[in-house]
C-alpha cells in the first residue's frame, strides 16, 4: 500500500456555519414564474436512474420511454439529461434513446462498494464506454481515502478518467461514509484535481445521501477550483432528493454559490428516481391550480 499520502490542501470547514448558511438559503421563497422556470430547469437536469439488482432489459426500456416522454399531457417539456443504469444494460438504454439527445450514464468501478481490484474496475469502465455510455459514474475507494491514502485515491480517479476516453467522468464520493464535512471538502478537491468532470455526492445506497450541508461544501469546493483554475466542474447530488421543493432549494444554493453558469444540465444534475413525477405534478399545479393524483403520472 502506498504510504506517500499526498497532502491535500483544503480549507477547514465549520459545520455549524455551514448548517446556518443552508438554513438561510432554505428561507428563500420561490413563487410564480420563478418557480415554473425552476421546475423546468430541474427536469432538464435529472439523471433518471435505476440501479437495482433486479433491473432487466424491460425495466430499462420502460425507464427510457419515460425519459423520452415525461408526461404525455405536457408535450412541450424539456427532456431529462440522462438515463443512468448498470454497465450490463448500457446497450439497451443506448438503443432506446438513440437520436433523442438524452445521454446514457453508467455506474462502474464495482458500484456501489468499489471493493474490487483496480484492473477489474478499469475493465468495467472500458466495457461500459464500449457499449455506448456517454457518462461514467465511478465510486472512490472510501476505505483507502479514510485511511489517509490520498495518493491511491488520486491515482484511482486519474486512471478511471483515462479509461473513460471521451466519456464524461462523475466521481461519487459517497459522502454518507466520509464522516465529516472536512473529509467531504478534501475528497472534492482531490477528485477535481485528479480529472473529475463532475463530483457526485452518493450512490443512493447509503444514508444520509445528498444532504444540503454536504452539497453546499461541494459547491464551494467547485467554486474555489473554478476561481483558481478557470475550470468548471459539474455537480451531481444523488439520493434523497425526491420533491420539487428539495430540488428548488438546490437551485437556490447553486445560484447563490456558483452563479448562473451552473444552472445548466451540463454542470448540474440530480440523480433521482422519483423526483421527476413530483416536479411534473407541481408544473401541472402551477398551470391549472389543482394538484393531480400521483396515479395520473406514469412510473
Amino acid at each position, binding site marked *: 500500500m502506498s504510504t506517500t499520502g499526498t497532502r491535500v490542501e483544503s*480549507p477547514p470547514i465549520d459545520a455549524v*456555519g455551514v448548517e446556518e448558511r443552508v438554513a438561510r438559503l432554505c428561507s*428563500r421563497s420561490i413563487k410564480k414564474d*420563478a418557480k415554473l*422556470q425552476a421546475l423546468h430547469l430541474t427536469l432538464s437536469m435529472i439523471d433518471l436512474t435505476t440501479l437495482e439488482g433486479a433491473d432487466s432489459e424491460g425495466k430499462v426500456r420502460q425507464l427510457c420511454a419515460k425519459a423520452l416522454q415525461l408526461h404525455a399531457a405536457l408535450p412541450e417539456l424539456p427532456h431529462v439529461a440522462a438515463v443512468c443504469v448498470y454497465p450490463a444494460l448500457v446497450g439497451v438504454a443506448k438503443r432506446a434513446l438513440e437520436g433523442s439527445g438524452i445521454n446514457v450514464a453508467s455506474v462502474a468501478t464495482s458500484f456501489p462498494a468499489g471493493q474490487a481490484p483496480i484492473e477489474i474496475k478499469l475493465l468495467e469502465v472500458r466495457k461500459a464506454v464500449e457499449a455506448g455510455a456517454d457518462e461514467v459514474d465511478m465510486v472512490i475507494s472510501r476505505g483507502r481515502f479514510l485511511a489517509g491514502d490520498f495518493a491511491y485515491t488520486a491515482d484511482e480517479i486519474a486512471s478511471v478518467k483515462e479509461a473513460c476516453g471521451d466519456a464524461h467522468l462523475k466521481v461519487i464520493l459517497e459522502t454518507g461514509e466520509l464522516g465529516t464535512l472536512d473529509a467531504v471538502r478534501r475528497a472534492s478537491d482531490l477528485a477535481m484535481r485528479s480529472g473529475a468532470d463532475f463530483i457526485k455526492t452518493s450512490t443512493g445506497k447509503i444514508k444520509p445521501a445528498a444532504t444540503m450541508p454536504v452539497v453546499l461544501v461541494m459547491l464551494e469546493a467547485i467554486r474555489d477550483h473554478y476561481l483558481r483554475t478557470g475550470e468548471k466542474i459539474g455537480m451531481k447530488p444523488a439520493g434523497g432528493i425526491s420533491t420539487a421543493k428539495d430540488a428548488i432549494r438546490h*437551485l437556490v444554493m447553486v445560484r*447563490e454559490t456558483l*452563479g*448562473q453558469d451552473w444552472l445548466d444540465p451540463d454542470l448540474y444534475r440530480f440523480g433521482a428516481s422519483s423526483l421527476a413525477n413530483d416536479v411534473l405534478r407541481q408544473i401541472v399545479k402551477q398551470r391549472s391550480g389543482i394538484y393531480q393524483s400521483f396515479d395520473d403520472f406514469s412510473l
Partner: protein
Amino acid sequence: MTDSTESTGPTAPKLRLGNGDGWGYAPAPESTDHVELRDRYGLFIDGEFTEAADGRTFETANPATEEKIAEVALASDVDVDRAVAAARRAYDEVWSQLAPRERGKYVYRIARVLQERGRELAITESLDGGKPIRESRDVDIPLAAAHFFYYAGWADKLDYAFPGRGARALGVAGQVIPWNFPLLMAAWKIAPAIAAGNTVVLKPAETTPLTALKLAEIIREAGIPPGVVNIVTGAGETGAAVVQHPDVDKVAFTGSTEVGKLIRRTLAGSGKHYTLELGGKAANLVFEDAAVDQAVEGIVNGIFFNQGHVCCAGSRLLVQESVADEVISKLKDRMETLIVGDPLDKNTDIGAINSRAQLDRIEEYLEIGEAEGAEPFQTSCPVPERGYWCRPTLFLQASQSHRVVQEEIFGPVLAVQTFRTVDEGIAMANNTPYGLSGGVWSDKGAKAFRVTSRIRAGVLWANTYNKFDPTAPFGGYKESGIGREGGLAGLHAYLQPEAAA
C-alpha cells in the same frame, strides 16, 4: 488556501452572482391582509389609551415608501407625569402586593400572546421600521417572546436567583428604547422589570412606535393590572421627561453614546439606578486559519443584519494579511447575492434605512470615508426609487485613524483593515472608544479562546456573530455603556442590590 495570484489578471474567472441576470426570484411579498393598523394611536397610561393632554401628535411613516402609516400622540411632561403617577400607584397598591407566582403568570401570558400574534407583529415591525420580514419574523418577534418567557420563570424564584441577598424591586422604572429593534428592545426592558416586581414607563422611538403600542394592546388584553406598564410616545423631549422624572427609581436607556452621556450627567446625584446600553464599533477578526466561507458568512451577518442598525454590529473587519485577498474577494461575491428592497418581500436581505435622518447620516459617512482615502465598494444590486436605501458597502484600505473606523455609522457600511500578527489584531480591535462586542474567526479553539479573553468588550462571539439569547447578559465596556441586560445580570439590574435577606 487558495493562491489568489493565479486568479488575477484580465481574464480572471468570474462568477455570475448578481440579481438581475438569468434565473431570478419573483417577488414574494408577505400578505398584510390580516394586520389591523389604526389611523391614530394614543398614549397607554394606567391601562387605557388616551390622547396627549395638549392634543399634540406626530406621524410615523413607512421608510420603504415614505408614506404615513399613523398619527401618534406626542407625550409632554404632563403626560409623562401622569404615566409615572400611574406606575407608582400600581407599584404601591397592586404589583408589589401580588404573590410572585401570580406576577409570573401575567408575564407568561404576555409571552404567549406575542407568539400567537407573531405574524401580525412581524409585519407591523417591517412596515414601521423597514427591516426585512425574514428578520422580524425569525429574529425580532421570537426573541421578544423568549425574553418574556425567560423572565417570567424568574418571577417566583428571585430568592434563588441571588441566594442570601434578598430580592426587592426598585419601584418605577423609566425606560427609553431605540428604533432598531423596537419590539425586542421593549421586551428586553419590560420583561425583567415587571418579572422582578417593578412597574414601568416605556418611551419607544419616534420613528417606530407601532409595535410597542401593539404590545400595549396585548398587555391590556392579557389583563395586566392597569399602570404596571405604561407606554408614552414621543421624541427626545418625552424621553428626557421620563429620565428626569423625580419619582422614577431606575432608568434604563438603549441608544446613542451621545445621549447616554447626557443621561449619565443628568442622573448624577439623583440616587436613581441606571443601565445604559450605547453605541459600538465592533471588530470582527478573521485569522488565516479560519474556515473562510463560514467566516465570510459571519462578516455578512455581522454588518448587514438589520441594515447595520445594530449597536453590536461587526462594523470593523480586521483580516489577517495572508488571507486578506481571498476573504475580501469572497466577501464581495457574497455581497452580490444580497437583495436590497421591499422589507415585506420574504427574499429581501437588506430592507429600508429606518429614516431620512439616518440615511443622511450614513451618506455623510460615505463621503467622509472617501475623503479620508478609504476605497469604497458597493454592490450592483438595484434599489427601489422611493424610500430610504443604502447598498451594502465596504471601505477597503481603511486605517485606524479614519473616522469610518473610529465612529459608529449605524448602517450597512463595513470598514476593512488588515493585520499581520495576533497581537496586532488584538491591539487594533481594542483601539476604540467603544467596547460592546466583537467576533473572532479561527478553526483553532485555543486561539479563539485566548483572543476573545483579550478583547475588552461585553459580548464576544467565536466563529459566529449576532447570536442573541435571553439567558446571556449583554452590555458594554467603555463608551458602550454600563450595566448588563439579559440573563441573571439583567434581572439583578431591576432589584435592590443591598437588600438584606
